């Protein structure tokens, strides 16, 4: 009997190529989409699970509020790891990683520098913590001695290959000598260390040995003993504040106790986050590598669910629409002795057959689309063809899908009463119309929702990109790794400034693009209470900084080469002024100092106030900022006047190569690095768009099929109307209007939901657009237009058919 079912199913699919195509194509598109989304989510969820004992590894985060500034830091103080290891019996080992950023590396025997972008200091028990095996070298000693380092396989191969790596001497940034003591395999793409390629021994890093609790610069990982529970660990962890942090603060501010520290509204909360949660749940300011977000996982899961629902609904609609053709068969089978259950089985067999054909098509689509998807999502996913579990899940999901999509048509069709269908009593008696209509409404409601989402995301992106930022990022070229220039920096800058097309150039520690920076705590002269502390970023700039970036002075003056005293001057922004609790005019001439960091209580005089400009992303409010004169090696910004870009670039390159022949010029445009900041949003926007198109496409396939069905069902009515004198236009209009009503209802349902959901999304931005009526109107109109185009064809086709023919059918 099963064979018979398959045979009939196969033949009836082939007999109706148009419907079969719509059905399979719709289902396959949905399945392919869901397949990609599932693999992506699986990849996101698998982050850092590859490390041995991953379930016992945690990182210490600190939630800090001090000096009007709140931060969640993924890094904690240098002495933290030792305290955890010594004072806590639950902690098996603790290890620290201290990011160093990019470093130029060459063999001491060559002149050829190669840049490694992510390097870090690591404690000697680094290998123990993450269960890493060395390809060459001894894990017990590899990171023990100062000035030793290990490389990843890829990094090692750039210089000398893996096997003879141990013992090689390397020169870092042209000055620091290191010996290679080991090589590890590259980290998997879904681990938080994926971008790191060089680890240097922490024992050679002085800052790491100090017992300073005020700077949070060390990623501190702990491995708990197997019997320990994380929950029991949190309360004792917090005691570190009273036991270590406060005593250290008291050395600088003798009056401070834990009580009045908390009473003044400040806090430091230490807590641990599981290693495997970092990628999706940690929202710390500094991370070892860019995190995903659980929010995106939710959004994608919803989109995936929508897609498969859409495809499934399509299937139901098209199948029941075809029931006219199958009604006779049901009748015959019943008179030949089939019962309802037998027919249900038959139709479910049929939907399974369709689902499995669709699965094959879907896998084909997924293979083709995968590279584009990876590009879109910034991942490296492939279909795990060799994984039996994958196939098991795929097969199971397909069966589930076919049952889900098949049950309604199956029960719907098996209910037909033979006496009626065999007599052919009116095609309109097939029924099921209300359910089909609801399904169409559901499909289009989802599509409209996604259109609204796409519009809002793209408009917000547009807004961000065109927002007046308070500085000019146009035509600004950034020379990176300026530390490579060493002492020749100032000379290079002067030479570059002489190039005809160059308007200005400035060397600074930071540019107004997001980057990892620290806050320093400043006090106004004569104020020492912690309530008066102002947490402020401090950037080292030169005389040309404000001019190069078109930053506006609100009051006071810029640094001047004529005044020797400007080495102790500071320019602050409006936020800093308001945190100091004075007016702009009052701020000028005030003196501020920071006890921490390298300033050692020296006083700086405020000589100018600049307008606020956006130096973090538009998700954040503008924080306090201080600019000081100083020699720095971060980067050089070059403002270029329009035109002749390439010749200017060549000229700059010439200057660079003349001075620093051993290192290539690395540059980018400020516009680019600014746009990179909104990669997450751009990705979300593109993902929204792709899946909006997909869902609209699937919904239209369904609508197209339904329109065909409807036209067929009403053949007689159309014939009668024509005989009575109705025009083609009137009939097409009637047929189309029915569907437009459904689409209209969908729009009414989903516009408010879309508006509400996107309003929530926009809450994340400090600077955001308002959702405009025209976005909603546009979404509605677009949907209606597409619906008209889809249905119109079928309607006109039905309307121009000869009435003689259509009346004969009945």
């Amino acid at each position, binding site marked *: *009997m099963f064979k018979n079912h398959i045979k009939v199913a196969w033949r009836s699919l082939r007999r109706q190529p148009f419907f079969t195509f719509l059905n399979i194509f719709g289902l396959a598109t949905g399945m392919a989409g869901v397949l990609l989304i599932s693999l992506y989510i699986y990849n996101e969820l698998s982050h850092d699970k590859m490390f041995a004992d991953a379930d016992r590894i945690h990182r210490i985060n600190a939630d800090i509020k001090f000096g009007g500034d709140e931060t969640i830091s993924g890094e904690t103080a240098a002495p933290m790891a030792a305290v955890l290891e010594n004072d806590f019996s639950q902690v098996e080992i603790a290890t620290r990683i201290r990011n160093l950023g990019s470093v130029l590396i060459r063999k001491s025997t060559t002149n050829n520098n190669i840049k490694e972008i992510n390097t870090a200091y690591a404690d000697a028990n680094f290998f123990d913590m993450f269960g890493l095996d060395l390809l060459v070298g001894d894990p017990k000693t590899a990171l023990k001695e100062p000035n030793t380092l290990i490389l990843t396989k890829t990094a090692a191969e750039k210089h000398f290959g893996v096997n003879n790596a141990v013992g090689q001497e390397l020169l870092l940034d042209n000055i620091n000598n290191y010996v290679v003591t080991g090589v590890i395999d590259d980290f998997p793409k879904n681990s938080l260390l994926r971008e790191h390629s060089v680890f240097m021994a922490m024992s050679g890093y002085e800052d790491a040995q100090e017992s300073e609790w005020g700077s949070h610069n060390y990623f501190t990982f702990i491995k708990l003993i197997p019997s320990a529970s994380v929950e029991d660990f949190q309360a004792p962890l917090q005691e570190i504040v009273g036991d270590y942090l406060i005593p250290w603060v008291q050395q600088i501010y003798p009056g401070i106790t834990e009580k009045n520290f908390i009473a003044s509204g400040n806090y430091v909360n230490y807590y641990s986050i599981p290693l495997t949660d970092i990628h999706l749940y940690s929202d710390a300011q500094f991370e070892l590598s860019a995190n995903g977000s659980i929010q995106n996982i939710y959004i994608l899961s919803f989109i995936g669910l929508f897609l498969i629902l859409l495809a499934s609904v399509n299937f139901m609609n098209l199948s029941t629409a075809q029931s006219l053709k199958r009604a006779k068969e049901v009748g015959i089978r*019943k*008179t*030949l002795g089939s019962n309802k259950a037998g027919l249900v089985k038959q139709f479910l067999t049929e939907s399974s057959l369709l689902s499995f054909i669709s699965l094959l098509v879907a896998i084909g689509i997924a293979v083709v689309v995968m590279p584009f998807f990876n590009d879109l999502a910034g991942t490296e996913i492939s279909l795990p063809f060799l994984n039996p579990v994958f196939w098991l899940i795929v097969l199971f999901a397909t069966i589930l899908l076919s049952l889900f999509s098949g049950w309604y048509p199956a029960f719907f069709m098996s209910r037909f009463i033979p006496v009626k269908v*065999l007599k052919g009593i009116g095609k309109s008696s097939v029924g099921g119309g209300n359910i089909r209509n609801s399904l169409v409404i559901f499909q289009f409601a989802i599509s409209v929702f996604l259109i609204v989402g796409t519009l809002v995301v793209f408009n917000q992106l547009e807004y961000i990109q065109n927002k007046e930022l308070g500085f000019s990022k146009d035509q600004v070229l950034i020379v990176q790794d300026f530390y490579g220039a060493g002492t020749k920096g100032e000379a290079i800058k002067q030479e570059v400034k002489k190039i005809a097309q160059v308007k200005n150039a400035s060397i600074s520690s930071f540019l107004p693009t997001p980057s990892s920076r620290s806050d320093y705590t400043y006090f106004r002269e004569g104020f020492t209470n912690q309530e008066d502390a102002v947490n402020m970023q401090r950037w080292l700039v030169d005389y040309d900084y404000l001019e190069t970036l078109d930053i506006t002075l609100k009051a006071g003056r810029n640094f001047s080469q004529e005044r020797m005293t400007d080495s102790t001057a500071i320019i602050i922004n409006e936020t800093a002024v308001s945190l100091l609790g004075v007016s702009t005019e009052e701020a000028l001439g005030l003196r501020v100092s920071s006890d921490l960091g390298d300033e050692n209580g020296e006083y700086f005089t405020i000589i100018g106030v600049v307008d606020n400009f956006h130096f973090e992303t538009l998700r954040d409010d503008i924080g306090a900022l201080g600019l000081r004169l100083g020699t720095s090696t971060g980067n050089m910004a070059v403002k270029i006047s329009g035109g002749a870009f390439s010749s200017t670039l060549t000229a700059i390159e010439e200057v660079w190569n003349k001075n620093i022949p051993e290192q290539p010029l690395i540059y980018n445009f400020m516009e680019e690095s600014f746009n990179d900041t909104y990669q997450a949003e751009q990705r979300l926007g593109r993902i929204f768009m792709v899946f909006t198109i997909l869902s609209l496409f699937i919904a239209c396939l369904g609508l197209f099929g339904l329109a065909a069905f409807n036209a067929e069902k009403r053949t007689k009515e159309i014939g009668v109307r024509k005989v009575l004198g109705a025009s083609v236009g009137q009939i097409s209009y009637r047929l189309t209007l029915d569907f437009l009503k459904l689409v209209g209802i969908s729009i009414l349902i989903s516009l408010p939901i879309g508006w509400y959901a996107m309003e929530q999304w926009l809450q994340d931005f400090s600077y955001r657009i308002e959702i405009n009526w025209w976005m909603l109107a546009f979404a509605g109109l677009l949907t209606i237009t597409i619906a008209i185009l889809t249905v119109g064809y079928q309607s006109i086709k039905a309307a121009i058919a000869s009435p003689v023919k259509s009346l004969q059918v009945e």
Partner: protein
Amino acid sequence: MLLQLNNIFKWVNSGGQRIFLLKDINLEVEEGEFISVMGPSGSGKSTLLNVIGMLDTFDEGEYNFLHESVHTLKEKHRSNLYKEYIGFVFQSYHLLDELTVQENLEMPLLYKKYKGSERKAMVADMLDRFNIVGKKDLFPAQLSGGQQQLVGVARALIANPKLILADEPTGNLNSQQSEEIMELFKKLNQEDGVTIIQVTHSENNAAYGSRIINLLDGRKV
């Protein structure tokens, strides 16, 4: 006795009025009879046939089929009953378009759970008996109306039913094809002892039967 209808009523309510489709029908059918049901359009011929075939229900009265009281049976038992004993022949043949002649013949056997080898033998036997072996791999659309109806009759017969119900079996056929089918019915009735009830408009066709029942407005006349 094969079947017995006692005081069968069937009606529908339309516009507050009760319209009778069958009114007080009494009928006894012995095994081996060949009955023709006649009457003008809308007189209830097909309804009566459907009631006898258990495809349709009735509102009042008793119906006994081989000692079973059909009116008290549940849907499932009813369908088992007609599956076992009744074969249907339709005016528009109602073959399954997706299946070949051979496969169409096999259908009733599948539903009765015959074994594969048995099915093969029975289908081959039937093809042979109806002289359509050469057409076994053709689809219905490739056959003439008369040939299709031949297959329809063969399909109705294949599971050895006691009763064949034919609703205007020659309604779509020309006179020559009609005659062939009627001859076939006569032969089946006389040689194989199959009981046949047919609905027909044609006096000629009715003459093949052993008894004629006339209906008018749902009543036997």
